[in-house]
């Protein structure tokens, strides 16, 4: 039950730090002055438009701890944010990455003093090359889109080298990741969208009509953003390669394929892998990520710099940094986000070959379990076995009850679950894209299924409840579009007594 005091406390708990300031209060005690006193430089140089909060140490710790608790993370609860692979990140990864030999080194140190770190880089390169069946890996791209750009710049360099500068067109299926077209354009190509057929595969007739001597290549996400394995993939890669194009694979959904499918065997020339998704390093707060670019035989000489190579001389092993012969140059400083690489290394080593294979098994089984259990409550746009994620549609709820995918997502927050990805892929109306990941237990999946069924019933019996959700968060519906465009990041005095 609420009371006037409770409401007052609630309001006070939302005060910003500056509004908690009490004149004269200090959070630190300075030692006595033990050096000669001198005049400050001209006061003109001292800003007075940015007052500091006057609070005690205890108040400031509580303040930041409280606001940190508004945050939602994979360590709080289930986080089925489709396409983002929000799986649990073992704490062992962090433990290893924070070892002083990894965390206290400097990228400009002499290679001879960081052989262990270079060995980690080399081993991750080798693991990724092996896992994907490609020819070589560069770990420096800083995130998925950076890896995509690297791959497309490599494709461009390849065509230019062969005197085929007319190859300007990149085909991208409508079920690809949204970053793909942007990467292709940034690399100097023009984009043509390919439709999906009614089973969610690439439309082969449309593909055949689109290839020609202007074809630079194709960027395809496998499994697609529909969570489906493209059954036409061997034909797709063959048609593109026969026409002289490069096949780019967006490996953001690689956790569905690990230990089961090698992208190299399917005819891919270059792919990227999001270590922060597939290989379990923290993400969701804006990074850091890592998007290694992995090349097949045709493009391996164009990899960005620098790589780490292993040399053996009279029984002595040394790791050295090197630049491939026709390298496109640097995509990131030094060896990229090394801390992420050390975490991925730990993850791969602690799972081993069998463990890596169980990732894809569990990811696919978990998603299909949810698909089966929820297909009575939500529309399924493609009646097929899915891969690591399942895309539902809330279009029936919208048409029958006026409840949108957004309302369903907001109501999930009331039940303590992070909303799934919404309105993506664009080819599914009122899309809800659920990726349970491989790290969730049967109990968690069952709880989620119960919640989703309940929400579907609520949509019919009490749609208002969903329109007004979430009910239990500090703020309810936010104007997200305005917040993104006009972010209000700085405290300002509320009644204009300065400025």
């Amino acid at each position, binding site marked *: 039950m609420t009371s006037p005091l409770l409401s007052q406390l609630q309001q006070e708990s939302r005060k910003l730090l500056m509004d908690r300031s009490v004149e004269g209060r200090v959070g630190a005690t300075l030692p006595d002055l033990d050096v000669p006193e001198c005049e400050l430089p001209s006061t003109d140089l001292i800003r007075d438009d940015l007052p500091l909060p006057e609070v005690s140490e205890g108040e400031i710790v509580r303040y930041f701890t409280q606001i940190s608790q508004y945050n939602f993370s994979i360590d709080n609860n289930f986080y089925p944010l489709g396409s983002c692979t929000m799986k649990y990140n073992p704490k062992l990864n962090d433990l290893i990455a924070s070892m002083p030999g990894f965390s206290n080194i400097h990228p400009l140190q002499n290679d001879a003093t960081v052989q262990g770190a270079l060995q980690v880089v080399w081993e991750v390169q080798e693991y990724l090359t092996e896992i994907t069946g490609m020819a070589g890996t560069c770990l420096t791209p800083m995130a998925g889109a950076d890896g995509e750009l690297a791959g497309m710049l490599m494709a461009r360099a390849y065509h230019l080298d062969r005197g085929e500068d007319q190859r300007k067109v990149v085909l991208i299926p409508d079920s690809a990741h949204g970053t793909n077209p942007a990467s292709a354009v940034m690399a100097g190509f023009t984009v043509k969208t390919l439709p999906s057929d009614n089973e969610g595969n690439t439309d082969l007739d449309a593909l055949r009509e689109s290839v020609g001597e202007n074809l630079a290549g194709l960027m395809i996400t496998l499994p697609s953003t529909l969570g489906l394995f493209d059954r036409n993939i061997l034909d797709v890669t063959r048609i593109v390669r026969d026409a002289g194009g490069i096949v780019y694979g967006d490996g953001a959904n690689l956790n569905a394929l690990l230990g089961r499918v090698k992208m190299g065997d399917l005819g891919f020339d270059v792919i990227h892998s999001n270590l922060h998704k597939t290989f379990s390093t923290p993400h969701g707060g804006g990074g850091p990520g890592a998007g290694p670019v992995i090349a097949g035989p045709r493009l391996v000489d164009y990899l960005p710099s620098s790589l780490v190579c292993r040399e053996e001389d009279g029984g002595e092993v040394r790791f050295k940094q090197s630049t491939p012969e026709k390298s496109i140059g640097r995509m990131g400083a030094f060896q990229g986000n090394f801390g992420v690489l050390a975490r991925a290394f730990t993850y791969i080593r602690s799972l081993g070959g069998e463990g890596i294979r169980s990732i894809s098994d569990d990811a696919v089984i978990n998603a299909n379990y949810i698909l089966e259990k929820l297909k009575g409550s939500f529309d399924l746009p493609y009646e097929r076995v899915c891969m690591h994620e399942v895309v539902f549609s809330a279009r029936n709820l919208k048409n029958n009850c006026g409840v*949108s995918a957004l309302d369903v997502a907001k109501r999930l927050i009331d039940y303590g679950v992070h909303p799934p990805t919404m*309105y993506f892929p*664009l080819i599914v109306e009122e899309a809800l894209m659920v990726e349970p990941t491989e790290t969730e237990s049967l109990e968690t999946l069952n709880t989620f299924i119960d919640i989703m069924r309940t929400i579907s019933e609520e949509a019919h019996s009490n749609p208002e409840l969903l329109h007004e959700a979430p009910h239990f968060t500090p703020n309810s519906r936010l104007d*997200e*579009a305005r917040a993104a*465009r006009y972010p209000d990041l700085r405290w300002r005095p509320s009644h204009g007594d300065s400025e």
Partner: protein
Amino acid sequence: MTPDQLKYSSEHEWVFVDENGVGLVGISQHAADSLGDVVFVDLPVVGDSVDQFGKMGEIESVKAFSELFSPVGGEVLEVNSILADAPDLVNESPYEKGWMIKVKVNDATEIENLMTLAEYEDYVLESESN
């Protein structure tokens, strides 16, 4: 305003030019439906000048972000400021309450570059089947 009184651009904006040469501009029902729930509309300010088929603003829906292009060129006389707080009017009433700007049309012959309702409907059907 009824859809058959309007002229349409290939970027899915419509315009209605009155006897004083003032063009009322918005986006088509088809555009509003394919965008989905509109959450933000950014428009020029009064006094700005816009070119025919030039950028006049931005629109964001739950699904996508798109640019808006003016179907006619001229000076912006008025802006539908209600859309700043109620962008969903674009979905509810694209031809009435969801109008975007009024433009003092510079060159009346620009209208000839636009489509009639029947032509626009054919255009939409054709681009959907491609």
